[in-house]
């Protein structure tokens, strides 16, 4: 377990947070239907950094974007979510 620095609550135990999915797997409702399945189901799944959507479920309940290393669990950045946080 490690600490996740919530922009609203400060550093909190990782167990308070829930992982949702990666930012690139969010389907654009206005986008082409043909690519939706691919976006929804496939992942880069790198053995390294990826941008992930998490929620501070047992805290302020805010949605966050974590740039996190899947091998070392180092967190490079935490951003509050908003349209600007998604690619």
């Amino acid at each position, binding site marked *: *377990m490690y600490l996740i620095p919530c922009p609203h609550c400060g550093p909190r135990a990782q167990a308070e947070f829930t992982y949702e999915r990666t930012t690139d797997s969010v389907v654009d409702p206005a986008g082409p239907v043909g690519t939706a399945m691919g976006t929804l189901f496939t992942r880069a799944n790198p053995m390294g950094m990826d941008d992930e959507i998490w929620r501070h479920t047992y805290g302020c309940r805010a949605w966050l974007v974590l740039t996190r290393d*899947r091998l070392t669990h180092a967190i490079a950045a935490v951003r509050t979510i908003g349209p600007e946080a998604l690619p």
Partner: protein
Amino acid sequence: MNRYSAFGLIRGAIGGHKHWQPAWRDAEPRASYDVIVIGGGGHGLATAYYLAKVHGLRNVAVLEKGWIGGGNVGRNTTLVRSNYRLKPLHDFFEFGLKLWEHLSDELNYNVMFSPRGSLVLGHSDADMTVLAQRGDAMACDGIDAELLTRDQVAKIEPLLDMSRDARFPIEGALIQRRGGTARHDAVAWGYARAADALGVDIIQKCEVTGFVRDGDRVTGVETTRGRIGAGRVGICVAGHSGHVADMAGLRLPIESQTLQALVTEGVKPMVRSVVQSHSIHCYISQSDKGGIVMGGDPDNWPSYARRGQPTIVEGAIAQAIALMPALSRLRMLRTWSGVTDMSFDGSPIIGTTPIANLFLNGGWCYGGFKATPASGFTYAHTLATGTPHPLAMPFALDRFARGATIDESGAGPLPNHR
């Protein structure tokens, strides 16, 4: 290959055990092979064995970045069963269970398959309805399944908390009597030895770092021991499918997660069957050495670190103790974890890829050990003939795009929200 036998043991005992040979050669990579299997886990070794045994291919190599048995095949909780509700799943795993039943004879290696019964507990009327449905689905296809009452469950596992105010009250169970456990390392070693005896090269400390392409075809692999040519290449790397496929430019419906397990000190027999509860995702069995083996949920977030978080172990222990209070008296010996491919419908992927000569076997989630023989058998068929084995057909990679997912637990594309 020196065949193992009772006579050989006696001869060894008299002769000071000097006649034993290494179980497999330490092969040097050749310039090229007809088939290269990436990953020397149980599935990769089984695939190589059936390629040689069933399809007569001898110019085959298994490339393993670490050592044989160091991956999930040596880290799992050894449960073997075929009690799935969905037809493609129970047909596939039942084919595997039948192979398990003769595996020690087939490989001339004792894999210690122990059909002690796989017991799935029901904690509510709703649970019992689901279990009955599952049992019926299995029985319709001739697979053994039996619904048990509370009293029958208590007879099999007297240490379960059967009281009405139990944390997880027990209403009954579904049992598959032919299910059980097997010795995981022995499965890897047995397949490795048998494949080697048929001429397969098992090459350890050889990591695949890239694919050699000729246009849209794969013609070989780059490794830490140089470039090796191949007629066909089969990815078979358990939790590492995502980034290995990525080297070929393939994105998979897979996310890698850590799964943990633990074992207690060895005690006298106290758990007879394999006790599972799918509602709370906890499972308990006793190893042949006497340790109580337990497992639970994955971390539920992507991870390649082969260590998990303690809260998950804590959760698994709390559930196990609630089911079987006597377990609270035992000391934990060790806990470990493995990296597993979580596919987005919970089912494996076996078959062709959009890239010619490149094949994929992965996405086993938490349940691939029991599949080892069936996975190897059907994947070998795919690699040898270029077309999927009928039993593996439903598990094609393109099923997600076709909307033909095989979703046993109904978790959709978010397995972590199960």
